[in-house]
């Protein structure tokens, strides 16, 4: 099957590159291929491109250029903030996060814990929501870092970031508040300073930029220790030759995304609602977090009578690509820790699929997806 006949609803996992970004990549690779840390003309071209990109991205998030540090993606940014502030001499420090975070945060938290620090997990309620009280009750005088995602990558449920950051600062003003906003920026307005976010992880490929490129936002008042050691690239904080063409493409993709934001996100939301309503009317399904404030691009569906392992295959064979929990190296898929954290009835835990809309979504996709799902369900029951 050719790609154009295939309906792609896995944008929360990755998206194709926008044409503008791809063009920018090619242009930048020819103009700005040189090492941006060098002392000659071609290096200056690269350096200019890099700093222009930084300004563009910082501007789009109402932050200062010095607050944006480029990384290899969201995972690196999460690892950096969460791990690097724990000093082996201060073992009474602790970390607070939630039990529905992305694996990049959870695995970093486990690393912190394995180094002898206490790690505390705020528990999700049955709607996939971390209440302010639940999160704040874990914060104490020794909390070094607190980390809570903007919107969940499996359910789309948006967390009360602003409320929590405010209360957090009045509980312990020296706690750094980190947020994984990788999914958030796909379909929500994310302003770091206004929401009290002091550190954030962003990824380019979720909004039509290249894979392997991302950024960390870090409030000017903090200086994190280097995470990768070597040369003095990237504001002297991250060693390694900087991927200038990738970063330039990232800035272009983000610019286009922000320009078209209302139109694109409006479409995602519309198509998602059409899709969900159609399924609700014809199948025995539950829409996870339906009553909650959700990211417009994510729809997590529980099929009451169908194991989603088989349904995923049938959808693929019928031309619809979606996902189920997080994939492991071999491609087998496991029940999700997020659904487990929400106390989803164990008899339904293997019956979920995530449908995620994105910038390539077109009018009619929601309807088409629902038709394929209904057909596939009929075929396998």
């Amino acid at each position, binding site marked *: 099957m050719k790609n154009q006949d295939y309906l792609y609803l896995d944008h929360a996992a990755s998206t194709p590159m926008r044409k503008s970004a791809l063009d920018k990549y090619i242009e930048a690779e020819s103009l700005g291929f040189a090492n941006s840390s060098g002392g000659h003309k071609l290096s200056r071209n690269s350096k200019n491109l890099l700093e222009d990109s930084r300004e563009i991205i910082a501007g789009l998030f109402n932050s200062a250029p010095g607050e944006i540090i480029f990384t290899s993606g969201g995972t690196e940014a999460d690892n950096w903030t969460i791990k690097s502030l724990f000093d082996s001499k201060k073992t009474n420090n602790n970390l607070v996060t939630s039990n529905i975070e992305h694996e990049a945060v959870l695995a970093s938290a486990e690393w912190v814990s394995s180094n002898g620090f206490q790690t505390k997990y705020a528990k999700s309620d049955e709607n996939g929501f971390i209440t302010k009280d639940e999160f704040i009750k874990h914060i104490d005088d020794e909390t070094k870092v607190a980390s809570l995602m903007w919107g969940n990558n499996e359910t789309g449920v948006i967390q009360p970031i602003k409320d929590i950051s405010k209360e957090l600062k009045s509980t312990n003003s020296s706690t750094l508040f980190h947020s994984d906003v990788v999914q958030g920026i796909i379909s929500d307005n994310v302003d770091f300073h206004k929401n009290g976010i002091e550190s954030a992880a962003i990824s380019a490929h979720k909004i039509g930029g290249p894979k392997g490129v991302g950024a960390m936002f870090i409030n000017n008042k903090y200086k994190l220790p280097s995470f990768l050691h070597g040369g003095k690239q990237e504001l002297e904080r991250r060693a390694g030759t900087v991927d200038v063409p990738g970063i330039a493409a990232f800035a272009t993709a983000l610019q286009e995304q922000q320009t078209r934001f209302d139109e694109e996100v409006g479409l995602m939301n519309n198509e998602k609602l059409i899709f969900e309503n159609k399924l609700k009317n014809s199948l025995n399904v539950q829409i996870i977090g339906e009553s909650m404030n959700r990211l417009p691009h994510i729809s997590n569906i529980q099929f009451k009578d169908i194991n989603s*392992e*088989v349904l995923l*295959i*049938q959808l*693929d*064979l019928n031309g619809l690509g979606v996902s189920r929990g997080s994939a*492991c*190296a*071999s*491609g*087998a*898929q*496991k029940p999700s820790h997020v659904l487990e954290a929400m106390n989803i009835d164990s008899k339904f835990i293997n019956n979920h699929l995530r449908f995620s809309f994105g910038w390539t979504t077109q009018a009619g996709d929601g309807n088409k997806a629902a038709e394929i799902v209904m057909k596939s369900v009929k*075929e*396998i029951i």
Partner: protein
Amino acid sequence: MRILVAMSGGVDSSVVAALLKEQGHEVIGVTMKLWEGPNGEMPESGCCTASDSEDARKVASKLDIPYYVLDYTESFSKNVVDNFTQMYAQGLTPNPCVECNRSVKFDHFINQAKKLNCDKVATGHYAKIIKNNGKYELHKADYLNKDQSYVLHMLKSSDLENITFPLGEISKPDVRQIAARNGLKTAFKKDSQDICFVGKKDYRSFVEKRIDLTSPGEIFDTDGNKVGDHNGIHEFTVGQRKGLPGGYGTPRYVTKINVQNKNVTIGEKKDLLVSSFIVEELSCVNDLEYKNLTIQTRYNSEDLHCEIRQLSDTKVLVQLKEPAFGVAPGQFGVIYNGTKVVCGGRISPKVLENIG
């Protein structure tokens, strides 16, 4: 037909996928993920490993067929691995591959195939299915060196109806040639011999890590004289020669393991001769038969002429025409009429009548 092919990443199942595709069928490839380490990683050696599923994926891509990895780890861990460790702890000789076919693979696989509207499932086993008077029979493969009907004996006529074994009439060298002709990277891959979840490690250390096996007991000779002590019956299997008290003129073998009092008996080779035993947990492909029977007591072992007497729905008494070596409780006994599998089940530890 739409056919779901179980692809382990070896040459046999790769060729099955290639042959069925060549015949014009709609082929879907699946790797069953059976076992994983503590962090979800696949084992490093043996069949169904991470690199094997990678090979299967590459073959599927080369053949341009859809390919998926399905998770069978929960069922495998419960039905195969736990059973394996428990049987060793009891001094029995488990056969995890048969156990896997019997309680994990086929049921689940056929079920999923039906849901996906597949007409058949296919595997790379060497065995034949023959339709005779409306019933499906399981037969030995033409290429006897590789015949795997022994490990498939638990399949019933109603299962066989949903299965195809395209390698039943092909030899292994031919299979490799077909793979090479199709440019499949698995063409010259070595056959896996290891137990998939144990890998190249010693299975005893695998078992020891999982359960406490210290069950000290005594070692006796066939006349009932104590000749030594031991730390646990899991260190012994019937027929074992290594690690026993020495000082005899002729080699000594484990002839009997008593699970109740943990006593191990050792004797001479002739003491291992068995002429009758019980096969339990019996499963018949079609109706039970009584004439012209032979039995295999291990995978691909010699066919021993025998007679059987039914003791209950799931138990038969097997009487060998000639006493034989190598009948180990816990292994499966599979009864044939010519090339046709009649039935099979587990060799019971309870009644093992030795002669000699």
